[in-house]
């Protein structure tokens, strides 16, 4: 357990040493979101209609973009060997890395998204709902993305490969995340959507750490 805390702390410290990295992911989120109005055109009714979907897609891309180095840096400089040699379960280490990743991306994304939603003309209640879905949904993205990052360790061109592996697995989260916001806006069952999101997060939590650990072990060979 102390190793878990130490690993989260070390990753956060590494980020703290370069606060720009988080800023960059968030900035990417903002820029990507604003691209769509540029590509699509400024009609207000179309924009409000697609806002939740676009924001969720942008959050997904932002999370994935920041994931490609999750284990790669440790792999390339030899730290992964040290993690593999640490005398406590690798599954915990995997979880710690994903946890740190969520703290520095998922959490800020959830805070930031409502601000962008304003630009798409969303209602205050919908903005809150957007934030809530991201809060519940992004841990799943970090876990699934972490698995994809571990699986692609040592493979070349891992950026695009990672996205190819992670995106289909993230689809349910995306659907229920954007769907929840949509449900609130159109009078559907918001609660049920959030419950499904939470269930997805639990499934991911129960399965991915083992898979990530297995992937890391074979990357170390």
């Amino acid at each position, binding site marked *: 357990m102390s190793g878990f805390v130490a690993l989260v702390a070390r990753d956060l410290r590494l980020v703290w040493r370069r606060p720009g990295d988080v800023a960059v992911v968030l900035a990417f989120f903002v820029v990507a979101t604003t691209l769509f109005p540029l590509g699509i055109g400024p009609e207000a009714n179309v924009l409000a209609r697609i806002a939740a979907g676009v924001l969720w897609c942008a959050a997904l891309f932002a999370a994935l973009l920041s994931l490609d180095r999750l284990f790669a840096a440790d792999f390339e400089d030899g730290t992964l060997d040290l993690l593999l040699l640490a005398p406590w379960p690798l599954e915990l280490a995997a979880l710690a890395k994903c946890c740190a990743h969520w703290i520095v991306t998922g959490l800020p994304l959830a805070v930031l998204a409502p601000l962008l939603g304003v630009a798409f003309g969303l209602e205050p209640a919908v903005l809150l709902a957007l934030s809530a879905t991201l809060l519940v949904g992004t841990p799943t993205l970090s876990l699934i993305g972490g698995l994809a990052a571990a699986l692609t360790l*040592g*493979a070349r061109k891992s950026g695009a490969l990672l996205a*190819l592996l992670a995106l*289909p*697995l993230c689809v*349910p989260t995306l659907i229920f995340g954007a*769907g929840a916001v949509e449900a609130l806006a159109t009078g559907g069952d918001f609660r049920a959507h959030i419950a499904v999101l939470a269930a997805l997060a639990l499934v991911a939590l129960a399965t*991915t750490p083992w*898979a990530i650990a297995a992937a890391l072990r*074979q990357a170390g060979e």
Partner: protein
Amino acid sequence: MADLHFLANPARFRRFSQRVVPSLSVATALMLAVGLYLALLQSPPDYQQGDTVRIMFVHVPSAWLAMAGYALLAGLGASLLIWRHPLAALMARAAAPVGAGFCAVCLLTGSLWGRPMWGAYWVWDARLTSMLLLFFLYLGHIALSRAYDEPDRGDRAAAILALIGVINLPIIKFSVDWWNTLHQPASVARLGGPSIHPSILVPLLWMAATLFLLFVLLVLLRTDTEIDRRRLENAEQQA
């Protein structure tokens, strides 16, 4: 020494496949000839869908085989990771493109069916979408297993992916179903109901059996090739 260990299971597999493949090929070819006759000539046009119903005889079996193929990948993945069964890796490598191929057939024939029936090659319907995502899962598996220099590592990484993917498949299917029912376009026509007329059911099942044999034949052939290829690589490395 190690070569013998490596070949223990593959050698047995090869004896088996060599006995089966010739008769399997003949059986598949014969059944295909009969099946095509049943599907294209003998069976009557549907009263509602006209001749397009004939697309069903390839479309539906490919859908079944594509789904069964991914389950096979997951099973092979488990047997590679748990029992380190050397043949499992080779067979998974052989089966993934075959499954992806059947998935592509299902998607494309479905599209070609959609145009006359729905007026569009593609609609974002639940079934279509989840099939598309299955195709992506196949692509990810194929890409991952070939993304490494050491084939063993690619095999194991892909095995992990297949296991997680198969957990996710029902989740994907279920979520896509729910997603779609929210905005279902009313125009989606669907044959079905409990009673399919035997004049359609017979060719359908016949083609399903035929394509199943083709699937098995392809996997056997490709596994055989993978064994040889692995031996070739080993020989190259030893040199």
